[in-house]
């Protein structure tokens, strides 16, 4: 018997977001510290360490080359960790969703709330990272203001990707595949550490279809104030994937939790 899946409601989704925020508020001081150490270590190790050998990349100091991309990858890790492991535990072990779904909150509302929260966690990661970059004197210009909405949107995009994977799996161990076979290659081959133009054309084409690449290019453009129509292209790609994936993942979670 088919029924109309109820429409997703932003207000109900925000209730779920609020629940996560209430939990986070309790431990945020403990939670947030590593978000500052991580960029620091990356910049020291890769930027200054590796940078001692690679003095220049595409006409800029190596540390300046990698920083905008690392910022985006930190959003990626933050948002996907939230909508993979954390959502899986709430859904299957802690039975948090059993409690939530017996209230007027429906599965699609719940999914959207988790996406908002994943984007929020991504934003927290990204903002911490950005603040360290500012300390290193990078990105100190007015154009950088554009990066803030981008951080949230890119966080949202990665939240949808993580949640989609979570909606498909039944065993928590399968996340290892997601992280090692999907996110790690993205991390390494999306132009964060070296320009993709050096790689064969086939790799460049593959890269175009991956989400991190567009985020990295967008971020680097904003940091270096290279304003061009390509930036709009990357932005459109990100918005397109995010919208499409949101529709898919809301349906997937509805199917998973209403059966």
């Amino acid at each position: 018997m088919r029924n109309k899946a109820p429409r997703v409601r932003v207000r109900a989704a925000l209730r779920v977001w609020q629940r996560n925020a209430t939990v986070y508020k309790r431990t945020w001081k403990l939670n947030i510290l590593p978000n500052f150490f991580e960029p620091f270590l990356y910049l020291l190790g890769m930027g200054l360490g590796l940078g001692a050998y690679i003095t220049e990349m595409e006409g800029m100091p190596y540390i300046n080359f990698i920083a905008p991309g690392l910022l985006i990858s930190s959003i990626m890790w933050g948002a996907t960790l939230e909508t993979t492991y954390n959502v899986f535990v709430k859904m299957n072990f802690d039975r948090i969703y059993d409690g939530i779904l017996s209230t007027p909150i429906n599965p699609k509302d719940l999914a959207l709330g988790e996406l908002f929260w994943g984007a929020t966690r991504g934003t927290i990661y990204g903002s911490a990272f950005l603040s360290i970059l500012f300390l290193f004197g990078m990105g100190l210009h007015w154009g950088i203001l554009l990066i803030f909405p981008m951080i949230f949107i890119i966080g949202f995009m990665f939240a949808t990707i993580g949640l989609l994977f979570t909606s498909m799996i039944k065993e928590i161990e399968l996340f290892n595949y997601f992280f090692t076979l999907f996110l790690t290659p993205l991390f390494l081959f999306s132009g964060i550490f070296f320009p993709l133009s050096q790689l064969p054309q086939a790799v460049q084409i593959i890269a175009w279809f991956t989400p991190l690449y567009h985020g990295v290019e967008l971020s680097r453009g904003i940091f270096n104030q290279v304003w061009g129509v390509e930036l709009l292209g990357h932005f459109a790609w990100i918005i397109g994937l995010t919208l499409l994936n949101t529709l898919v993942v809301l349906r997937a979670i509805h199917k998973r939790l209403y059966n």
Partner: protein
Amino acid sequence: MGNEFFSFCEFGLSWFMENSTPIITAQKLSKTYGSLKAVNAINFEILPGTCYGFLGPNGAGKTTVMRMIYCVTPLTSGRLTVNGENVMENMSAVKRGIGVVTQDDSLDYDLNVINNLLVYARYYDLTREQAVRRADELIEFFQLEEKRGENVRTLSGGMKRRLQIARALINKPSILILDEPSTGLDPQARHHVWSKCHELIEQGVTLLLTTHYMDEAEQLCDKIAVMDRGHIITEASPWDLIKSEVSPYVVEIRGDEAARNKILKAVVDQIDFHEALSDRLLLYTADAIPLHAHIQDMDIPVKTLLSRRSSLEDVFLKLTGRELID
């Protein structure tokens, strides 16, 4: 004068109608998982302000029925209305009027006691003031004052169950669903939960529970549906079930099979009927005292000989030929 009388009648009629219109109606309600018919075309009606119980062994379909009522499982076929709303059309409206206590504890272990209530209140869009007032009332009603700021982990089993019931009541639902409310609780905690349930019924809440404990069903329910393998086998008040399906008393005998058979042969014309189980013999009778004395006088060695009132468990055994506890 005539007019007043008429409107008085009308008031009486509407009161009567309101209290006799079912709050939950199921027609040919079915749920299929693959080839398994978990719930098979069942019908039932639940009147407001009563306690209705689904009784049956694990796998009978009780929990599936509950899940369809509170809209976390879609129907395969049939029709189910709750508070006048079709569960397949208006999920949120249906859920707004129901409080749910799931079988497995679904409390939020990332939050303390009071925040479990306050965060839950948000899901119903209660304002902060409403939520705080209601949470305080519930904490008092369920005697959890001392645990107010504590982590849920530190609560005993009985307290957790009480908190779960409190949480289910945060939006003042007209229907409270309890899926095996006293499973896993010690006797004292069970009685506490039951007494709270009685208070809720008095306040006009409609209670809907599943259980495989006979004493629980007898204690709480106005009406019971006995379920087995997706069907409702029978539906009546606990006492009517016992009266109509079995005799008022049972004499229960444990001992070796030869001894049991010998006794059965000797008394078979003095009893209403019997059940011969793998480990014991049940003799149903209207009057246990003479039968008990008679068996004692026979001087056949048995392990135990006891007389007791018949229970719903006996009803279940009679109806399905199987023991309820599995």
